[in-house]
């Protein structure tokens, strides 16, 4: 066997053992590094979430005190948003599959890619250290709203600095991906012959580059304010707390699209493969990605409808919020239309993809309530919002992540997982998920505010269902993870193309050889060629 045809998993380079991984500039190994770190953080965040739901199963103190609860929802938010969902799909599957899908041997800047991962680890370490250093875990919520975040004695600084470093990691990944797509597409692969997952990463990359610096500078201002008493946001020094919210959401709203666009890209890959049919409306899906990225840049104000913005702002943001729903709807319609007259092979990834469409629909439609000004006044800052964004962020990114890992697992590890266990896990997870988050819509309509440690008796029954749902969901999650971990080592060997996929990653062996392609392929046909 020649050096180049060795799989990336077995390849022995300059460094051996663990160093061969954490110092590797191979995009596939970096993808897996991200996979392991992100999944670990996800489990931390999920555990915190479960503990919070257990606390809320009954009014009054159940298992923890209010300070702990507040610190938990802060850490849950920081971990899940900055450490899990934002890097999630782009850093793991983007790193692993973007070069392969466009017929390249690696990304444009492999060393920068490794640096991104290291920055991610360092940022994560700083953010997590906030729990143990200084005067106690931060309790501001992941939004760090001023002036509360300026006054509390808890250790807000390291959490903020951690988020800043993580932002850098995200920007570098975005720069790397965009450059790669500009410079390294295989000969013959025109832009409009590129598969949809790389397309979604392209749109995502631009948001990462153009939105992340805003949160960077905002967090730096918080640091300056806490350390040097420059009064950017403190009303007693002449600052305006609403300006903080503007700056924060200028990034953090587009961040939702950093999460959801790659998720949509994954779904756009899976549906044609399992329908054995080319995607319906390729260019509509591409254009809608950019529509989402661009319009999504100007809807941040809908997080602040009750905050006292000017009427003109409200008008503008509400209108654009409704308009940004349209490109997402177009994608859903195109996915469903792709199934029409297909020859559908129902497998685990398709279960996840179809349930993605279902939960994403619920998430998106519940957004209509919140986009509508008069209704939003009642629903904002209640459990309804919590339900809404968990349907979008967890239901969107989380389900797409599950779909992606079940879709590409055979390619990544060269082994197949146990399909019946995978399906069982999916079903239990799905049921638990609905119970957990759907009840939040009901609770929010009844008026239960969010981020509360305690609640009145009238909200008790809803909270019980929700908490039980969390337990069921995590049970399903355990089945899924155990199945995958077992199969990575002991599953039966997978062929190069187990699903009948047509994109480039299925033309190379599983697991991929170290250099991806013996010879760079020449592209002559469309990405989903089932003719």
């Amino acid at each position, binding site marked *: 066997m020649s050096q180049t045809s060795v799989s990336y998993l077995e390849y022995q380079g300059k460094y051996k053992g663990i160093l061969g991984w954490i110092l590797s500039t191979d995009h596939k190994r970096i993808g897996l590094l991200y996979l392991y770190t992100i999944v670990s953080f996800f489990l931390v965040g999920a555990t915190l979430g479960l503990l919070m739901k257990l606390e809320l199963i009954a009014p009054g103190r159940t298992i923890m005190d209010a300070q702990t609860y507040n610190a938990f929802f802060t850490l849950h938010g920081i971990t899940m948003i900055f450490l899990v969902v934002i890097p999630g799909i782009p850093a793991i599957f983007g790193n692993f599959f973007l070069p392969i899908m466009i017929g390249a041997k690696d990304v444009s800047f492999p060393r920068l890619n490794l640096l991104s991962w290291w920055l991610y680890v360092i940022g994560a370490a700083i953010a997590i250290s906030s729990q143990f250093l200084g005067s106690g875990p931060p309790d501001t919520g992941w939004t760090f709203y001023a002036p509360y975040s300026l006054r509390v004695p808890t250790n807000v600084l390291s959490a903020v600095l951690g988020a800043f470093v993580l932002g850098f990691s995200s920007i570098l990944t975005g720069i790397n991906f965009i450059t790669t797509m500009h*410079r390294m597409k295989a000969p013959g692969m025109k832009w409009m012959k590129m598969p949809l997952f790389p397309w979604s990463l392209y749109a995502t990359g631009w948001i990462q580059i*153009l939105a992340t610096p805003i949160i960077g500078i905002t967090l730096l201002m918080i640091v300056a304010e806490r350390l040097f008493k420059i009064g950017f946001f403190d009303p007693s020094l002449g600052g305006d707390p609403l300006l903080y919210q*503007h700056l924060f959401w200028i990034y953090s709203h587009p961040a939702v699209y950093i999460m959801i666009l790659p998720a949509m890209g994954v779904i756009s890959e899976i549906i044609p493969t399992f329908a054995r049919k080319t995607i319906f409306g390729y260019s509509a899906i591409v254009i809608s990605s950019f529509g989402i990225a661009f319009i999504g840049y*100007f809807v941040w*104000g809908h997080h602040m409808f009750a905050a006292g*913005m*000017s009427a*003109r702002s409200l008008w503008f943001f509400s209108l654009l919020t409704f308009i940004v729903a349209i490109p997402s709807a177009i994608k859903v319609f195109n996915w469903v239309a792709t199934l029409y007259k297909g020859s559908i092979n129902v497998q685990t990834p398709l279960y996840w993809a179809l349930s993605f469409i279902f939960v994403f629909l619920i998430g998106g439609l519940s957004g209509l309530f919140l986009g509508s000004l008069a209704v939003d006044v009642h629903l904002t800052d209640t459990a309804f919002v919590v339900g809404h964004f968990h349907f979008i962020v967890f239901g969107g990114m989380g389900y797409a992540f599950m779909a992606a890992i079940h879709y590409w697992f055979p390619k990544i590890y060269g082994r197949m997982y146990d399909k019946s266990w995978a399906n069982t896990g999916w079903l239990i997870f799905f049921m638990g998920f609905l119970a957990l988050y759907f009840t939040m819509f009901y609770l929010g309509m009844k008026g239960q505010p969010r981020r509360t440690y305690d609640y009145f008796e009238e909200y008790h029954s809803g909270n019980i269902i929700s908490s039980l749902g969390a337990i069921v969901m995590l049970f399903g999650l355990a089945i899924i993870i155990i199945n995958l971990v077992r199969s990575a080592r002991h599953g039966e060997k997978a062929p190069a193309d187990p699903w009948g996929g047509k994109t480039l990653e299925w033309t190379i062996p599983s697991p991929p050889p170290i250099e991806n392609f013996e010879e760079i392929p020449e592209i002559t046909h469309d990405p989903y060629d089932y003719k």
Partner: protein
Amino acid sequence: MMEPIKKKVEGYRLYMITFTVLSILTLIAVWLTHVRFASPLVIGLIMLIAAIQAIIVLFYNMHLKFQDKILTIFVGLIFSLIFLLIIVTMLDFVYR
């Protein structure tokens, strides 16, 4: 995509000319503030001068003129986006 245009870049003189023009524009801006204080017209003029200077720096010093057109389009979009960002935020602060 984004292939550089092979035409070789001119001589050193270009940089001396841009430097002279940029300096003169700066001096004009300073002179303007001494002539009349803080009328909206003067402020507008000063910002216009800054914008012209920025364009000179981008096109000549940063060689945008000698690169693929797509990069110029990107830069144009970036600046429009920044402009839009400020306008949209100002919708709140001006009319509150």
